[in-house]
């Protein structure tokens, strides 16, 4: 597609449930990033993929969060045993090659996760 797409656009779940958030990067982009944005805050880095591997997952808040990118394109962010504090907009971005501060990141529209 022309841009980064994310599904679903909105997800409402109950505390303790498992959720999966999907990201389709721009075709041909090897680098993919996940960010989380809480209300009134800027996006916060979670994890960065270069190809199929997670090059840096230092931003994941705890072991309930996990992300995969098995074929180097689509990525899924997985959250186990969701908590109310996980409620936020989860943004995905991709860039052409990654690993460089001059490589422009293009963001998707995000998934708004609400944990009741």
């Amino acid at each position: 597609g022309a841009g980064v797409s994310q599904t679903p656009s909105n997800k409402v779940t109950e505390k303790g449930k498992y959720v999966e958030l999907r990201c389709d990067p721009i075709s041909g982009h090897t680098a993919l990033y996940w960010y989380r944005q809480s209300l009134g805050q800027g996006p916060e880095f979670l994890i960065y993929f270069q190809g199929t591997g997670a090059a840096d997952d230092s931003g994941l808040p705890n072991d309930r969060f996990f992300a995969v990118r098995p074929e180097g394109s689509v990525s899924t962010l997985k959250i186990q045993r969701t908590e109310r504090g996980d409620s936020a907009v989860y943004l995905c971005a991709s860039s052409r090659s990654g690993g460089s501060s001059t490589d422009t990141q293009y963001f998707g529209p995000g998934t708004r996760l609400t944990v009741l």
Partner: protein
Amino acid sequence: EDKVVQSPLSLVVHEGDTVTLNCSYEVTNFRSLLWYKQEKKAPTFLFMLTSSGIEKKSGRLSSILDKKELFSILNITATQTGDSAVYLCAYTNSNSGYALNFGKGTSLLVTP
């Protein structure tokens, strides 16, 4: 601790006004400073400023980076209602050159 601080947090102007948004930074091993515009959800890229490119311009928008005083400004002239958005400033450094580290943003409302 590395950080960027944006000011003001919110701003209301009339169509046609000129606005200046500020982003001050304290960053070790600084690489670049970026501006994004966020309407609804997806941040869209505006400018990237580095040591080798401290001034950028695109239409009514322009930005400069002051490496001595450690700040950047985003200037919007002849504002339009479509400029209403949250403007985010972010830095990268050599510690994690790919991760964008964002400020809280400035919420701009342009009234007719």
